[in-house]
């Protein structure tokens, strides 16, 4: 018995150390590359040298801000992300309300159809849209990009909207109407507040995905409307310097702001509960 428990204990020690080692290495692997990028963005050298930077400066940021194509594509990306968020949240919230209103024939199929853009590789969506929109005669770059981004972000809004309505009691709306509220009043003062967490989570995901997308935008961008990630990717392939690290720091800062807003308004536990990471 004693030998058995001793081997058991040493087995545990080995297994435990192994598990903690994997967890530690995993976290380091996630964090270190991002930390290096942040550090290198402030490198005072004018070339890509080994770590650590001998001095810090903001010159990579200055150089980034002096590139006209970066600035114009940043503007395009921001306008596009705002428009995408507004459209996707409106369309997605409405669809979630419609799907949550009782059972009807074809409900399951419609739900799957609404979520199906999530399972199609983004490159296929981008290439498909490129061919189709050229044939349909839609040549405006911004319009093409907007359609592509709404297609991939609206499913997130539908999903988070549905998840937030899942626990909501339909009778609350009925009660409001029995008490004299019109249908419209009941919708705006009961249904929408109930969906608050879902709408906010969906909006933040839509904004972030639209700001970051490369696979779809690369096909749909044209000289009049090019997004920031597309410009960065072509810069990255042309020359590997640290202006991109500076851009990465700025994009990371935007994401962190979004995340803080998300935590304040919704809470991370609720975000995980929205079904975005359902197994």
């Amino acid at each position: 018995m004693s030998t058995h428990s001793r081997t058991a204990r040493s087995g545990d020690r080995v297994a435990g150390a192994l598990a903690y080692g994997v967890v530690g290495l995993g976290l380091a692997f996630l964090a270190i590359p991002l930390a290096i990028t942040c550090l290198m963005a402030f490198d005072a050298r004018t070339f890509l040298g080994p770590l650590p930077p001998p001095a810090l400066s903001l010159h990579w940021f200055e150089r980034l801000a002096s590139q006209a194509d970066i600035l114009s594509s940043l503007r395009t990306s921001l306008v596009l992300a705002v428009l995408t968020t507004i459209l996707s949240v409106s369309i997605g919230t409405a669809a979630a309300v419609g799907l949550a209103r009782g059972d009807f024939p074809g409900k399951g199929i419609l739900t799957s159809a609404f979520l199906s853009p999530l399972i199609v590789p983004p490159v296929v969506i981008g290439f498909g849209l490129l061919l189709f929109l050229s044939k349909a005669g839609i040549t405006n770059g911004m319009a093409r990009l907007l359609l592509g981004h709404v297609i991939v972000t609206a499913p997130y809004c539908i999903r988070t909207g549905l998840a937030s309505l899942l626990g909501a009691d339909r009778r609350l709306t009925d009660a409001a109407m029995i008490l004299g509220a019109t249908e419209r009043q009941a919708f705006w003062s009961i249904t929408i507040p109930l969906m608050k967490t879902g709408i906010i989570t969906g909006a933040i995901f839509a904004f972030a995905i639209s700001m970051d997308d490369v696979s779809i935008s690369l096909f749909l961008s044209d000289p009049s409307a090019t997004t920031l990630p597309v410009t960065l990717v072509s810069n990255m392939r042309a020359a590997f310097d640290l202006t991109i690290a500076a851009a990465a720091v700025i994009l990371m800062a935007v994401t962190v702001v979004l995340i803080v807003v998300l935590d304040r308004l919704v809470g991370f536990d609720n975000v995980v509960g929205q079904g975005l990471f359902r197994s």
Partner: protein
Amino acid sequence: MTNARQQTAAISISDRRDRAITLAPAVLVLAFGFLSPLINLAIESLKEFTPGRVGSVENAATTVQNYHELANQAFANVLLTTFWIGGVAALVGQLVAFPLAYFIVRRLSPRMRTLALGFLITLVLSSVLIKTYAIELTFGSVGILRPLLLTVGLSANSREYINIVVIAGLVHSIIPVATLTLMGAMQSIDPRLLDAAQSLGAPGWKAHLSITLPLSLPALVSSTLISLTFAISAFVIPMVLGRGRVLFMSNVIYTRFSDIANYPSGAAISLVMLATALAVISVITLAHAWKSRR
């Protein structure tokens, strides 16, 4: 009685009208921006390609040539690369995500747990471009992990080195999503089961092997497949980190568009890729059906 029936009828009519109004925008956008392009891709993939023309000719002949051309060694290699690199990345991702999810769910204080969740969600929402660039900086010519790989005896220009960097790029994106997916399953495992096993004399590792692992197996299977779908449709990661030597299916679609403007062939590859993605997804659906039957 009649009154009541009329009431129900009135409600259901208004419900039906509301449903039509609320669902119409999504249906229209989906039909125009998603279904029509996919149907058009299928049609285009059967069109004859005329070299030197952008897109297929107006009344191009119907042909299966574009698919037939894919039955060669070069495309088979692309398919194979996509799957083996994607598969390795998906598995390595689970190997890290599984203990990480357990650690976050069971070993952290609520405060640290929120912090860890915030970190993971930040990673999920950060641009794939940032992550790819960060990996390139870490493994690239001045990267801190480069000496490590060089001591193992890999030359920085070898195919193996590039494969490892692409896998690292994919794993970096897979770990956060897989961890968040697995955490749900871990949370629903009753911690008293482990306590019971251990107080009955089972060593900790054995208790995990016979309780934690089997109970989270369905989640692990779907997490693996979700990671695999992500990996095989990856585009930016192999494009930037693969330096043109590691080509995934998505990269070939892009070259068909950007370099040689062979749209019909690009459409055929898109359909092959779509079919592959759907095949993996249907395995997930089957796994779910199997899980709920048990």
